[in-house]
């Protein structure tokens, strides 16, 4: 019998191991969980679900559920907010074949997670039975290609926070249209104040305003994606802010909620803030601001468009490697649509606007001392949540698209107009789609 030397054995062993490792290193995210058989839940068995979220202090909320559901225990793990490190963490956990059962995912990023086969289609686990509890626009923002890929967790209907005293200096009140906003802003510049900030390094604000004006940048067709970023609504918004920046009507040196912004707002150099409902907690952080702020509906784009828009907002998604999708779904639904869940989330985490149509949260049904005694949640944000662009749909590679836009916006200072940036970005985003193998075409007018 020919004897195999140790070295040969070692070589053979290392060689096999190397091959095995390399074959294991296929590009991550190329296998779909949604064609595999569904995972049945086993009643009576004690299980633990993990939820990765950037909500602070979420465990006390989960503990309320845990007390009532001894067999389905939920453990929360804090991750950094989305693009600040949470998504990279989730993506790499998915790529490694792991990750939690539930994850905090913004609506705009759901398609990107779908691209890497990271999310479970919840219709396979009975998500439809919960659909009636949620706002239709938000439900549709987490539904794609006939599936449901997230349970709405919060949203950010927009309105205008403003300082009545400062506006009063020029005899103005909160503007109802953007044209009026420009007039007030011009007057205020004489009093050394700005109305709003326009963030050049972050495309979310511009996108929200385009959606308010009635834009629909992407839609899914049978044969692929259709892009239209140069429609009248978007161009109107781009031209408007091109002009506002050129005439120095809007602050571009810093963005809202930055240290510079807090300082300026405290000194009255910032008179208003058009932002989402979750901005209230941040506005309350302005030193000496108590009693000086009020909330009004945001300005409109003339007769067209919508009364408000969504800025931010997120869903709870079941990740591909979850062993307990049905139980995860049940917890997500409890967390986001029951009086108990929403109230606890507001109390412990300061969550954004409730996605459940019947529950806005007990704490949000009373007047606020900080906001001049105004019952602003019920009076302003509740109606704003109903005046949304229902046609708006997110798309894969949203983060890259936003980076392309903000990379262009940064050049505004050196003379590139927002209009040019948007036109140019549309081409670049089409290239991104083609590079990842998706078919996309320009909307034919």
């Amino acid at each position, binding site marked *: 019998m020919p004897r195999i030397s*140790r*070295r040969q054995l*070692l070589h053979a*062993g*290392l060689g096999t*191991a*190397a091959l*095995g*490792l*390399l074959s*294991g*290193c*296929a*590009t*991550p*995210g*190329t*296998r*779909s969980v*949604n064609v595999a058989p569904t995972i049945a839940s086993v009643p009576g068995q004690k299980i633990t679900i993990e939820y990765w979220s950037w909500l602070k202090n979420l465990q006390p909320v989960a503990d309320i559920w845990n007390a009532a559901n001894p067999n389905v225990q939920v453990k929360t793990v804090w991750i950094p907010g989305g*693009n*600040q490190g949470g*998504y*990279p963490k989730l*993506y*790499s956990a998915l*790529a*490694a074949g792991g990750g939690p059962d539930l994850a905090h995912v913004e609506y705009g990023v759901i*398609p*990107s997670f*779908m*691209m*890497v*086969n990271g999310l479970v289609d919840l219709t396979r686990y009975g998500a439809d039975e919960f659909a009636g509890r949620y706002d239709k626009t938000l439900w549709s923002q987490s539904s*794609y*290609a006939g599936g449901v890929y997230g349970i709405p967790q919060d949203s950010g209907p927009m309105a205008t926070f403003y300082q009545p005293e400062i506006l009063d200096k020029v005899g103005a009140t909160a503007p109802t249209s953007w044209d009026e906003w420009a007039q007030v802003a011009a007057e205020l510049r004489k009093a050394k104040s700005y109305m709003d900030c326009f*963030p*050049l*390094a*972050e495309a979310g604000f511009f996108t929200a305003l385009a959606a308010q004006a009635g834009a629909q940048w992407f839609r*899914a067709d049978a044969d*692929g*994606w259709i892009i239209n970023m140069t429609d009248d609504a978007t161009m109107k918004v781009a031209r408007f802010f091109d002009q506002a920046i050129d005439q120095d009507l809007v602050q571009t040196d810093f*963005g809202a909620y930055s*240290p*510079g912004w807090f300082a300026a707002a405290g000194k009255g150099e910032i008179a208003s803030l058009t932002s989402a409902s979750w901005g209230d907690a941040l506005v309350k952080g302005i030193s000496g601001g108590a009693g000086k702020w009020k909330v009004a509906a945001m300005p409109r784009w003339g007769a067209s468009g919508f009364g408000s828009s969504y800025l931010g907002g997120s869903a709870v998604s079941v990740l591909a490697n979850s062993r307990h999708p049905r139980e995860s779904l049940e917890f997500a639904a409890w967390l986001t649509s029951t009086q108990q869940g929403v109230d606890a989330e507001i109390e412990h985490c300061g969550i954004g606007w409730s996605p459940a149509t019947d529950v806005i949260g007990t704490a949000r049904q009373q007047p606020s001392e900080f906001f001049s005694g105004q019952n602003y949640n019920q009076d302003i944000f509740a109606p704003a949540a109903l005046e949304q662009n229902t046609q708006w749909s997110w798309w*894969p*590679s949203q*983060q*890259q698209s936003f*980076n392309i836009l*903000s*990379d262009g916006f*940064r050049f505004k*200072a050196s003379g590139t107009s927002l209009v040019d940036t948007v036109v140019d970005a549309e081409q670049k985003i089409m290239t*991104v789609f083609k*590079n*990842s*193998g*998706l078919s996309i075409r320009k909307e034919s007018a």
Partner: protein
Amino acid sequence: MTTPPTRTDPAGAAAARPGRTPNTGQRGSGRRTSAVERAPWLLLAPFLALFILTFILPILAALLSSFTKVTRSGLFGEAGITSKFAGFSNYAQALADGNFVASMGRMLLFGVVQVPVMIIMATILALLLESASARWPAFFRAAYFLPYGVPGVIATILWSFMYVPGLSPLIDIAGWFGLSPDFLGPSTVLWSIANIVTWSYTGYNMLIIIAQLKAIPAEVYEAAKMDGASPVKVALAIQLPLIKPALVLTTIFSIIGTLQLFAEPQVLKTVSPAIDSQYTPNLSAYTTAFAYNDYNVAAAQAVLIALVAFALSFAFLAFTNRKSS
């Protein structure tokens, strides 16, 4: 990388083998020579196994990945995903990405300025501390080296307090003189990063140079003293030529370090809108992989970064060798 844990066995198995070698090696003289030949390999095996597992294989995987392309059909790839050999198309895509190429250019500019400044400062500090008239050299050596002990992330947070308007005492002081420096603007933030890097690594490079200075035999100094050489003359004619290997080493490390810049801009990004998500080559590869989920193009970028680092290091070596010959 979905690798079953059992695949890593060779490391453990190989580690267990050396213990049995003496028994089998004593059976005959022919076997003894082969055992002698085999011994170093077996002793090296634990190292080699880990080296291959954690170094060679990941590099091979990245190379393989950089030549693969994933094509999706349907709106999200739900109708099927195929991987196939892509030739150089990922490299073409990486090089066509203006932001990635710009990040390379930015780091070259950074390196051309920051590396010489840091190496010159490190050399001067080392020469001063090793000169005969230095007071408390051990204390200052430790003090200059201390910033290296501060992790890059913490160093950046510390320095960001010096850079952010409203928090920075530097900006307040400049304000008294009617100046309003902007440390975080598009044209200045690169040099703010350079400052952090220089602060962190000058002491480290200084220590390597000091080690080489200490290796210079005392007789050389005595001879110079007998010939009446001034301290400056000693530094220029004796110390600098003799520490050239240390200078070459630190410069090459710094060039490679420059291309790998990551933590400082990543942290400073939160206070400076001028830093985009592809500000440095490594940030670009990170963003492409983990924010855009394009692992294949990210692998191509990583290979390109490595190639540029190789090219620059060898160019520098060739340059210094040519000068000395």
